[in-house]
């Protein structure tokens, strides 16, 4: 257990010192991107990983939060109202998503969320008086939480990190809680859960709302980071990309989506500078992960690690904790 604590402390220390050991604003900005995409992926992971409900329309929710922030700011109101509106509209859209798509599970759920995501993309693209159409909405400036400026890349990184740590802590709390256990139960045996007295639909609905909250927060951070929102951020590719983060890192694990976000964002923004066909590289990486670690990078690495300890560690420590009588 102390090994795990050490790992958390080391990871937090590494994240806190990023601007000191990574040189250049560009890479600090990439780190910020990794963090808010990780929040987005953690949000999707709540329902896709822990709830078994795969959504291909989450970029729509992400976009609604981002557009709401942009629209309210453009209309001349302040940051608090913009953020509040984004959260409220993000959650309201999630509720509509949930009510419509929770009528089914599996492929039906995927298709309905995909359709809803496309409707939102269509609105962003065509409802020009609100969204600016293809030109999108430009922002001017970032908020000043507690009077602190987050205009510089380093300051924005720390603000994002604070939100990220809070999001991660809330997810960690949730998956250990009774409601989290109930959600995983509805993923594995929905019929049994119902027969045990659980309200399967309501459990899934609240999981969707939590997912929607994290997604909206990620959308707000995104629009403040890029200072711009256009339909491109809302399209199907974006939904698929965040799902890829979840699956590549390890669906239904706490750290999987974070590793997945780091992988995808790094390939997209850093490697693409050196390799023109970075999309192909990302595809190749994904195929490799699926072949070697179909469960995702985090659980896959853990499995290989245990295998290595058992083979070469020599301590004779059993890999599984099934205590014999």
């Amino acid at each position, binding site marked *: 257990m102390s090994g795990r604590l050490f790992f958390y402390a080391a990871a937090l220390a590494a994240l806190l010192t990023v601007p000191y050991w990574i040189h250049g604003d560009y890479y600090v900005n990439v780190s910020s991107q990794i963090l808010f995409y990780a929040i987005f992926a953690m949000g999707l992971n709540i329902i896709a990983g822990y709830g078994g409900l795969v959504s291909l329309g989450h970029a729509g929710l992400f976009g609604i939060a981002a557009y709401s922030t942009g629209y309210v700011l453009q209309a001349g109101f302040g940051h608090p109202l913009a953020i509040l509106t984004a959260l409220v509209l993000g959650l309201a859209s999630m509720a509509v998503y949930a009510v419509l798509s929770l009528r089914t599970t599996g492929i039906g759920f995927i298709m309905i969320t995909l359709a809803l995501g496309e409707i939102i993309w269509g609105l962003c693209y065509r409802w020009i008086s609100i969204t600016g159409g293809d030109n999108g909405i430009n922002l001017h400036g970032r908020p000043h939480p507690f009077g602190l400026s987050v205009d510089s890349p380093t300051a924005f990184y720390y603000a994002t990190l604070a939100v990220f740590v809070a999001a991660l802590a809330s997810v960690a*709390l949730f998956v250990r809680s*009774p409601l989290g256990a109930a959600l995983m139960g509805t993923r594995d045996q929905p019929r049994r859960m119902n027969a*045990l007295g659980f*309200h399967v639909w309501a459990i899934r609905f609240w999981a969707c709302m*939590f997912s929607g909250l994290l997604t909206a927060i990620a959308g707000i951070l995104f629009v403040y980071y890029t200072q711009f929102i256009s339909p491109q951020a809302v399209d199907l590719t974006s939904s698929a990309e965040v799902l890829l983060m979840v699956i590549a890192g390890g669906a239904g694990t706490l750290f999987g989506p974070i590793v997945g976000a780091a992988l995808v964002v790094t390939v997209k923004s850093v490697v693409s500078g050196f390799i023109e066909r970075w999309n192909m590289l990302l595809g190749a990486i994904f195929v490799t992960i699926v072949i070697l670690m179909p469960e995702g990078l985090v659980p896959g690495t853990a499995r290989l690690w245990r295998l290595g300890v058992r083979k070469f560690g020599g301590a004779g420590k059993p890999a599984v904790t099934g205590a014999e009588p």
Partner: protein
Amino acid sequence: MSALSVSGLSKAFGGLQVTRNVDLDVQPGERRLIIGPNGAGKTTLFNLITGELSPDSGSVTLFGEDITRVPSRRRPHMGMARTYQIITLFPHDTIIHNVSLALLGLSPLRWNPLIEMKRQAHIATHGHEALERVGLAHIAERPLSQTSYGERRRVEIAMALAQNPKVLLLDEPFAGLSIDERRDVHELLLAIPRDVTMVMIEHNMDVALEFAERITLLHFGEVIVEGSRAEVVADPRTREVYLGH
């Protein structure tokens, strides 16, 4: 007042009438056995009683209260628990977690996202008690994937018992068990106190007959014979329908 009462219950899947005007009256504390050949509609009858299927007509009453329109998820809260013929457990979790979910299902804590499940002492205590009753407390922390079929059958029963039901519906609790395991489960069921009313579907006649006080024989969704153990066994229709000659 009967513990469980079913009257005029019918259900059809398309043109196939699987339950025909079934009446059933189970007294508090009774041990009732439901028998019938494959496809007689025994499990369907259970699904109608628990509300997993809704009947086309007829009613289900639990301790005098009409529950025909009560959603199936509410029924455990009213004192009804069941086991499944096809084992329906949580394969990625430990035995104690499976039983904890059964306890959580009836607890208001199930909506709580802010506390740690593992630290809920009363759930852990009651879970271990339920496992004690089925003789699995010593392997409570074992992942379900590493348990035998017989142990899983007992986990099914432990989950039902953990909910402290007034009416317990057992769907073929001996299915697929070895002779030794069958005897263990049989003793376990005999040890359940009389404040629990039990209805059991079972094919295995040697253990089941010993358990039952009254027997209902279903055939093509219909109640053919009902009566005490001796009456039903002696009835020529039982021989004809169930024993096949």
